[in-house]
């Protein structure tokens, strides 16, 4: 039986027909509506490549049954930049070389956006490393990732102050 899933994805509200209740949010994003920026690395919540924000909170979308998120607001990596203007976290990842192959990068970036919003890590590198440790990077761009999160935090602090 097809059900209609209402989601607001990157600011646009959508009615998504779901013909299979087993579909995860990750597979709905990737296979049904074509938002393939969010990646599948393990499909069991161990690598973080599928991290998206639901109502501002970071989750592993591979562990989320899509139908249980009816009405939610979802932000994916496709929703961060405004036109050609990159989000400060995206810009910082390029500048600090916070990735190599790029596959874990959407998840790293979504996690970093939420970590900065959570305000728990601030400019403490140890806490940034801890707060980003749910996102695996096999290329091991960790030094760049930590630097990128710190850079972006400083840039966003300046924006807030301005």
């Amino acid at each position: 039986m097809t059900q209609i899933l209402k989601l607001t994805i990157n600011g646009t509200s959508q009615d998504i027909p779901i013909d299979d209740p087993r579909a995860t949010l990750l597979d709905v994003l990737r296979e049904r509506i074509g938002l393939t920026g969010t990646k599948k690395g393990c499909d069991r919540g161990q690598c973080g490549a599928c991290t998206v924000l639901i109502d501002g909170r970071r989750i592993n979308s591979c562990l989320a049954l899509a139908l249980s998120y009816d009405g939610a607001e979802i932000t994916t990596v496709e929703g961060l930049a405004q036109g050609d203007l990159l989000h400060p976290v995206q810009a910082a990842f390029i500048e600090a070389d916070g990735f190599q192959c790029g596959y874990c990068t959407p998840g790293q970036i979504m996690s970093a956006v939420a970590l900065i919003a959570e305000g728990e890590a601030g400019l403490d590198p140890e806490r940034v490393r801890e707060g980003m440790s749910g996102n695996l990077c096999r290329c091991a761009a960790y030094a760049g990732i930590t630097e990128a999160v710190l850079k972006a935090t400083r840039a966003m602090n300046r924006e807030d102050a301005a």
Partner: protein
Amino acid sequence: MADVMNIQGHVRLGSNAGQSMTRRDGVLKVTGRATYAADNRPEGVLHAVTATAGIARGRVTHLDVAAAEAHPGVVKVYTPANRPDLAVSPDEKIHGFAWRTEALQDDTVRYAGQPIALVVAETLEAATEGARLLAPRYDADTPRIGLDGGVPFQPETVSIGASPTLEAGDMDAARAGAARHLETVIETAAQYHNALEPHAITARWTGDRLEIDTPNQAIGLAKQSFAAYLGIDPAQILIRSPFLGGGFGSKAILFGGQLLAILAAKDLDRPVKLALRREQMYGPVGHRPATRQTLKLDIDPQGHISALDHHTIAVTSSFDDFIESASNASHSVYATKAMRTTHGAVRADTGTPGPMRAPGEAPGSAALEVAIDDAAYAMGFDPLEFRLRNYAETDPATGMQFSSKALRECYAQAAEAFAWKDRPLEPGSMKQGRLLKGWGMGTAQFPCPMFQAAAHATLRADGSAVVETSAADMGQGAWTSLAQIAADGLGIDIDRLEFRSGQSSLPDAGVAGGSGHTATAGTALFNAGADTIRQLAELALNDPASPLFGADNAGVTARGGRLYRNDDDTRSEAYEDILARAGLDLLRGDGKGAREGEPERAMFSHGGVFAEVLVDPDLGQVRVSRLIGAFAAGRIVNPHLARSQLLGGMIWGIGFALQEEAIHDVRTGRFTNADLAGYHIPVNADVPMIEALTVHEDDPFVNSLGIKGVGELGVTGTVGAIGNAVWHATGIRPKRFPIHPESLI
């Protein structure tokens, strides 16, 4: 050594190469627009899932195909009974770089997790459930697992076609005069590449033309291989592989699932997409096998190594040979009067191993560096002093000169940055609070192979250019560093260069592996640019209307989109003006990259790695608190990206030393940890203060561009450095990597 770049004088290297540019694919990667194979969704695509064996050895006796096909959405189930034909059996070795693979050729099971059926469905959910419903039954044999559970044999070759044995010098004579005989036995665990992107393929037929999206490190070779298995002309196949979500060696190999997806797409006349599940990456796509290594060092009274004997036993599969060439890592690192390196092997019921980042070198270096450290302590030397005392001025394995070797400078710079000079000789001397602190070091070394590559360069009427080669970017930054080299070959700014890559219709760029891709494909690109500029210069030099007229053939240099007379820098002409006057819209050049002839020098990248660890004396928990390496690798094309490669390698060293280990249940032959929760790779919090310095090095012999490689170098040296730091903290020499906490308490 023959010089493959036969065109000197026209072009200038260094305008673009050598600069720390950020990645040209950066915006695509941070916005989610970089397209990996499984991101493709062709119209009408079907989803395929493989069912895999739950035993490690035996036969499949029953699959409930009816139950699977009855599931809503399931389109077809493929088993050995109905799998469409291949032109060549997947058990054939179609070339020297091919692995035997499983594509439902029979009902045999040769390792746990082997594909035994393919379920194709309208949705991923239906295919996944269909695979589960097959509920296989087996006739199971007792599995043979691990170094001690398998069947020993003497391999004829190791790695890819290398000799298993090397002897240099007179071992007996060298050993006779030694003051100390030391023996070190080290085991290393089976490791899996675990690229974050699972292996995937999207296959689509249009008539007799096949389009494949799949991540591959050598798409020219892959096209030939697919064509051979399918019995079609390679010209009918287009492979797209613009981005690889990590490779590390595992995506240089074709595996049966790719063939099955292609066959199903043909059979069903619809595109088919297959992505391995994480646990399915622990078998058909290679791994680094377990080793047991024995190192015997004989040291003379002055602290010089007189004899080195390195023997490795490595696990391979029951049906194919890839023998980890760990002993060969000892060939060229330290001076010795005599050496012997040998290999044995054990057949076990696992997937076949393959090259994994620093194959042979990583486990071999780990064991060698522990043995050297042990020898240094036994002879009363500081570990750095002992390594300098045994510095190889020439290659001990061949007697050849090194093409370049700035290892002393690497040691010095890294030791200085680390503040090594304050290190006490005795283990257990340092504490930080209640934690034991230790410092260790290791030598990093990796060979500089070159493969075969070709490239085109085309200069356009407006003075911009396009270059083409089928290079693979799996994260090393090929899109960027190769473009930098290509722009220098053409003497233009990189902003005026279009870089086309990542598909098999372009000139073959060879394999992204062996840390040789930048050197090989870079040389081809540079030469293609130089060939174009040579033609452009001929046009100008023969044209009385050109300010360059009359300069002799080597009398001009290309830079910034203009040709300049070498004897008069005020006389120059823009590319577009030369082309316009000649009435040309395009000018095209070709280039090849390869090493010609037998090398006359030993060619290696080098480095020194220094590690600090903190060990909990009660729990045995080890944390790396500082890791500093300095590396010399010839010309560094892009320091920003090279640093990332080196750091990545060093962090792989942390994983090797302390975490990575695939564990079999020996009764069933199945893995107990075939996922990213059980198979630990370093996470961000595992990575401390870490730095990779690069040491200037000019190498006129390694290739015409002076480029070595940085992709694998950082793994070597680091594992030993961490192991030696653990000893320095605790007084306990590691007997096995990864080091388990319980071995330290």
